[in-house]
C-alpha cells in the first residue's frame, strides 16, 4: 500500500501550512506533495517558503510560483473579471516584493508536473490541469467525457490537481480518477475557517479522503491586517466565505457560498 498526502494553494498561509504538515506527520504518509502556488493572498511570503523547504516537501511550480520566480508582471491566475484581477494584483505586488531572491530561484527550478507509478497505477500530479498550469478544473464544470479525455491524452490513471481552491474527487466510469486536492491557504468557501488537504491510499483500489485542518486563523487575519492587506481577505479567513476572486466560480459552487 502507498499513502500519499497532497495539498496545494498555500497562498502564504504559513500557519495553515504548519498545521497541515503536523496533521500529515501524525497520520503518516509515504510521500507528500505540494501542487504549487506557495504565495499570494496571505502575509509574509517567505515564512511559508521556509517551512516548506525546511521540511523537505516536494513541490510543483504553480502559476504563482512561475510568476514570482520569474518576476513576471502578474500572477497569471487566469481570472477574467476586472474586480478579481484588481485584488489578485494587490496580492501579487505585495508577494513579489517580499519574496527573497533565493526562494525565487528555487521556484523557477520546480517541475511543472510529476509522475508517480504506484500499485500499478499511473499518477499524474499537476497544478491546474495536465494541459495548462492555470486551467480551472471545477467539479461542476467538467463532464466525465472531458476528464476521461484528459486521462487518455496524458496517459494517467489518477490526475491530481489544485488551483481552484475547492476540493473534489471523481471516480470516472473507466475506473480512473481525478482529484482536486483543494487549497490550504484560504478556506474552501464552505463557511468553515479550517482548510482541506487530500490523503490518498492506493492498494487494490484508491481511497481518497479530504481531511479538515483547523489552525489559528485569527492570528493570520491579524497578521494580514497588520500588513495592510485588503480587509476582504481577512474577512474570508475569519468567515470561511470567499469575498474576492470568485467570479469564475460555476453556479453550483457559487450557490454553496455566501457572496
Amino acid at each position, binding site marked *: 500500500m502507498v499513502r500519499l498526502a497532497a495539498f496545494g494553494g498555500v497562498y502564504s498561509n504559513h500557519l495553515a501550512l504548519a498545521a497541515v504538515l503536523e496533521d500529515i506527520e501524525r497520520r503518516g504518509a509515504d510521500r507528500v506533495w505540494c501542487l504549487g502556488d506557495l504565495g499570494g493572498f496571505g502575509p509574509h511570503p517567505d515564512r511559508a517558503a521556509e517551512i516548506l523547504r525546511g521540511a523537505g516537501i516536494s513541490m510543483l511550480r504553480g502559476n504563482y510560483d512561475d510568476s514570482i520566480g520569474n518576476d513576471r508582471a502578474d500572477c497569471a491566475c487566469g481570472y*477574467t*473579471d*476586472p*474586480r478579481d484581477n*484588481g485584488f489578485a494584483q494587490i496580492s501579487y505586488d505585495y508577494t513579489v516584493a517580499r519574496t527573497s531572491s533565493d526562494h525565487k530561484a528555487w521556484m523557477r527550478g520546480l517541475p511543472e508536473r510529476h509522475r508517480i507509478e504506484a500499485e500499478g497505477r499511473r499518477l499524474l500530479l499537476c497544478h491546474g490541469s495536465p*494541459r*495548462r498550469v492555470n486551467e*480551472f478544473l*471545477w467539479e*461542476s*464544470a*467538467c*463532464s*466525465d*467525457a*472531458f476528464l*476521461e*479525455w*484528459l486521462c*487518455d*491524452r496524458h496517459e494517467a490513471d489518477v490526475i491530481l490537481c489544485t488551483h481552484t481552491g475547492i476540493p473534489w474527487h471523481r471516480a470516472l466510469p473507466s475506473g480512473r480518477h481525478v482529484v482536486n486536492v483543494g487549497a490550504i491557504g484560504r478556506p474552501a468557501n464552505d463557511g468553515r475557517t479550517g482548510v482541506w488537504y487530500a490523503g490518498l491510499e492506493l492498494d487494490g483500489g484508491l481511497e481518497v479522503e479530504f481531511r479538515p485542518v483547523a489552525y489559528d486563523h485569527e492570528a493570520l487575519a491579524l497578521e494580514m491586517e497588520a500588513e495592510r492587506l485588503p480587509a476582504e481577505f481577512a474577512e474570508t479567513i475569519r468567515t470561511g466565505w470567499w469575498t474576492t476572486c470568485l*467570479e*469564475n466560480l*460555476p*453556479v*453550483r*459552487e*457559487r*450557490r454553496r457560498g455566501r*457572496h
Partner: protein
Amino acid sequence: MSSPALSILPRQPAPRGESFPLQPLLHLDSLWIQVAGTSCNLRCTHCFVSAGPGEDRHALMARAEVQRHVAQGLALGVKEFYFTGGEPFVHPEMLDILADTLPHGPCTLLTNGTLFTERRLEELRRLGGGARFSLEIRVSLDGPGPEEHDTFRGRGAFARTLEGLLALEHHGLLPIVTATQGPGDDALELRERYVRMLREAGLRRPRLKLLPLFRLGREAARTRGYQAVETLADLPPESIDPARLQCSSCRAVTSRGVFVCPLLVDEPAARMGRTLGESLGAFRLAHGACFTCYVTGMTCGNA
C-alpha cells in the same frame, strides 16, 4: 448544402491574397448548439446573428438532432455545452433538451430573459438543483439603464429583463448578466456601474461577464462593419497564441452545419462541415471578428 440567404448579409471584403494565421482546434472544450436557429421574440437593432420573429436562415433544431450532436461531442471529450439562438425559449422543447443534456455535462443557456414563465422557472430550478453539473443561465443587457437597452431591443425590454433576472435569482439560478464593453470603456468602472444597478434593482448576488463589441450581423449594418486594417493578415505566427482564441477549443452547430465558432455562423467560409467529425480541422483567421478576438483575448464562454 446551399446557403442562398447568407449572401444578403454584410460580409467582410474578400481577402486579397494575404496570408492569415492558421488556427488549429486543440481540443473541443465547448460545443455551441444554436437550438433556436435565428428565431427570436425580439428583433434587436444590434443583434450579431440578425435574429427575430420569423427569421429562419438557421432553423430550429429538432431534439433528436441535438441529441446526436451532444453524443458526438461527448465522444470527442467535450467539456461543456452552450445553447443559443436567437432565443432558446422559442424552442418548444428547450427544457427537454436541457433535461437530456445536463446529466452528461455542464450546460449554459443564453437567453434574452423575457420569456420566463413560472412553469419554466420551476423546471429550471429543478434541473439545475438536481444535476451534478452546473446549469448556467446567461442574460444580456445593453446598458446599466433602460435608455440604451430599450433603444436596441424595444420599449419595456429592460424592465422585463430585470424582472426575469430577479425571478431567476429567486429560483436559485444565479444568472450571469452579459454586457458589452466598448473600446473606450474601463472594465472595472463598467463592472461597478452594472453591479450597482443590479443591486439596486434587488439582485443579491449579481454576476457579470463583459464581452467586446463584434461588428457582425445587424450591428455591422447599424454602425459599421470591419475595416481593412482590422485584420490578422500577415501577422507573424509567433505573435499569436492559438490557445488564447476560443476557436482553438470550440465549434458551433446550427441547422446548417458546423461552424468554427458561435460568432461566425453567418459566414459561409466559417462552415467547417456537416458533422462535428468533419469540422476538426484548422481554420484561417481571415475575418474581421478574429481581429476583435485577438485584440481583446475574449471568449464567448462563461469564464
